[in-house]
């Protein structure tokens, strides 16, 4: 089974702290994603990475950065956490579709971050 593992299920941080959310996938997928989900707003893409050290901004990158030094690991960094970054954060990975491989994204269990 494909596994996408996020380092924490619940996290409480203080305003101004630097926060690291880690995501690891075990299926050698090229693409990895970070989303945040807030009630009534669906999933909003923060950052997308299509290869090691390659990244693209999503719809809401402000206040976030990412790092992908190895193919299996994609980290989301909140440079200086603020209360409006309290949210559910979801990581996902997907392969490049090809012969016998569909373009299916697999999600982690999510990290519920509270910034106080």
């Amino acid at each position, binding site marked *: 089974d494909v596994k*996408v593992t996020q380092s924490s299920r619940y996290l409480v941080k203080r305003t101004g702290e630097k926060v690291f959310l880690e995501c690891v996938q075990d299926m050698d997928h*090229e*693409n990895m*994603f970070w*989303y945040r989900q807030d009630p*009534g*707003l*669906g*999933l*909003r*893409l923060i950052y*997308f990475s*299509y290869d090691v050290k390659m990244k*693209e901004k*999503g*719809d809401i990158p402000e206040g976030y950065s990412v790092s992908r030094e190895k193919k299996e690991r994609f980290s989301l960094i909140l440079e200086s956490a603020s209360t409006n970054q309290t949210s559910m954060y*979801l990581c*996902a990975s*997907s392969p*490049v*579709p090809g012969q016998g491989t*569909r*373009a*299916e*994204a*697999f*999600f*982690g*269990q*999510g990290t519920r971050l509270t910034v106080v």
Partner: protein
Amino acid sequence: LAKTTQPISMDSYEGQEVNITCSHNNIATNDYITWYQQFPSQGPRFIIQGYKTKVTNEVASLFIPADRKSSTLSLPRVSLSDTAVYYCLVGPWGGYNKLIFGAGTRLAVHP
């Protein structure tokens, strides 16, 4: 990326067939259509994917008309456990696909 429009919410009853339509008027030639399902406190999971005509799997069917400007996810004989949010995504076949989710359709199945 093609923008998608879905109803915000739908209600149904156990045993009924549910059809959720997604509009994607500016779909590109190399775009395919994917539907995901999300339960509370979980990440979305893949349901079905297609390019044109009809696709069926053990969970759902996907109907895509010839002009591909819309698609319909059909869930046969829903049960209470089908209560979830359903997302329609449109994106290019290939590596560079940002997977943009909209707000989705919240389906409530009643006894």
